[in-house]
């Protein structure tokens, strides 16, 4: 693989299930060695995208390249080199932990038995217990172990913390992702718990109804997307403010979330009667503004916006 080539490159990916369009010309690029957060509401198309990347689902249009390989034609080679943890992964419940580790290992040429044993010990998985009796957290840990023990170049995690308790979730984010990052492994993971991924992701893609609303470096996103509180002048309208994501009326004042404060500032200044109060937003709030923000209210005029 060319070192300059991104770990994942998606161009105009289009996917439908019957008549239902799930992904609409999705394009994104995941730089090598980055931790890429793929966020969206349930049903946004996160899992479908991941399945297309691994060649598990066929797509109608566009191109997916993973580690330089074509997902439509070279899915087996991709699956050998990628660690994949599926959302709510179901494994053979009649096998013991030890058996399933050994069994899965036979599919991977690069499987590392001693790494698997070490991970099993550190994740405190009981080797002789059957998979069927493991708790949800233990099952997630086992799925993670199976995704990591063949030393993949890229790890794709589909909502990996689903079912984990808060402590385990925190440990996962801090330890697992941190370690993978320090090894230079690219991590692509989907989640809807933004407050959890915020400390670890370098890049974020906000997916909504099969479209990428925003793809940006996390720090750049936080830098540009801001919440602005203002008291509007009489007759002023926010319709001319560029990049409005959300508008809310708070008493006689208006809270506006803008995509790019620098670009929007002059127009906001013109609308405000007594200056602007700018506040930072966390990733959760930014996501909310992009996905469920009531930007249509901007055209109505702030003083008549409904409470």
């Amino acid at each position, binding site marked *: 693989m060319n070192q300059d080539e991104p770990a994942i490159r998606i161009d105009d990916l289009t996917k439908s299930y019957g008549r239902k369009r799930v992904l609409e010309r999705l394009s994104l690029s995941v730089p090598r060695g980055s931790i890429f957060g793929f966020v969206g509401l349930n049903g946004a198309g996160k899992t479908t995208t991941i399945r297309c990347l691994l060649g598990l689902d066929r797509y109608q249009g566009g191109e997916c390249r993973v580690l330089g390989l074509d997902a439509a034609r070279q899915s087996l080679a991709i699956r050998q080199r990628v660690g994949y943890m599926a959302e709510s992964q179901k494994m053979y419940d009649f096998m013991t932990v030890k058996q399933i580790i050994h069994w899965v290992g036979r599919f991977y040429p690069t499987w590392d038995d001693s*790494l698997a044993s070490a991970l099993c010990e550190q994740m405190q998985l009981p080797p002789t217990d059957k998979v069927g009796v493991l708790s949800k957290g233990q099952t997630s840990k086992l799925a993670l172990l199976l995704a990591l023990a063949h030393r993949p170049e890229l790890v794709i995690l589909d909502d990996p913390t689903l079912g984990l308790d808060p402590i385990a979730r925190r440990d996962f984010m801090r330890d697992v992702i941190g370690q993978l990052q320090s090894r230079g492994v690219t991590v692509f993971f989907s989640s809807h718990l933004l407050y959890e991924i915020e400390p670890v992701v370098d890049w974020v893609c906000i997916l909504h109804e099969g479209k990428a609303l925003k793809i940006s470096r996390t720090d750049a996103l936080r830098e540009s997307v801001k919440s602005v509180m203002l008291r509007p002048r009489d007759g002023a309208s926010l319709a001319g403010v560029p990049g409005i994501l959300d508008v809310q009326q708070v008493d006689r004042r208006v809270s506006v979330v803008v995509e790019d404060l620098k670009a929007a500032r002059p127009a906001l200044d013109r609308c405000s009667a007594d200056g602007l109060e700018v506040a930072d937003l966390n990733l959760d709030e930014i996501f909310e503004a992009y996905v469920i923000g009531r930007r249509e209210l901007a055209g109505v005029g702030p003083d008549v916006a409904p409470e």
Partner: protein
Amino acid sequence: MSDQTLHQSKGSRGEGPSSRAPHWLRLLGPLLRSQWQQQRWQVVLCAVVMSVLLAATVRAQLISTREAGTLILWIGGFVLTGFLAIGPIGSERANGTWQHLRALPAPGATIVLAKWLFGVRSVVGIVLLATLAGWLAGRGLFVPTQWLLLSGVLAAFALGGWYTVLLLATLRSRNEYEAAMMVLSVSIIGVIWFLVAAMRYSGDPLLNICALVGVAHPMACGTYVFHILDRGETGVFMVATIAVSAALWWIGPIVVLGWLSRRSMTTSRMPEARS
């Protein structure tokens, strides 16, 4: 997880003795093993029930050995094959384990090949075991046990082929219920198909054409061959019938699924041997 773990563990599996075999072929081992773990109780139960039933019926002689053989090996075997064909794909999809299996770096054709091999092996094994049990039970009773052996071998051949038809029919099933419905529907069609094949001696040219088509039916082929051999006859048509059935339902799946597996590996540029 400590940093040390991910950085220092170096214990990749070495090359095993079978490393020269293509990668997809080596995947059959673990796939067959997991299939056995999934279906072992079904297989053991079927083997015990059929063996005990045939042995007891032959020993008791309440009905003739011929009737017992036909009833248990052929009709019972027909039901057993349907029962075994419901599980492999339908239940995996219903349990959600199919997703995990498909996410592993194994060609889909290899997975289906493993399921087919396991199913055919089970059906043939159960029928042959039951035949052996019936033959042993009939020894010393002055009953035609040689006939039972011939019937058993041909039933195993026919039912193995029939399993192929049923597995093909259940490939798209999303759960056991859908698989069961598909097995039932195909079995009904199979019975009608079989009856068409049985009319081959009617003399009507149109029915003869139907009979020729029906020869492709694995059960019809088995019973036809048995009928010919039982009369002490042989013939070119009989050999041709066996060849057609074996090519369609035994060799065909191996060749097609093997070729698809190999092609998946080639297009994906997978290593043929572990490094």
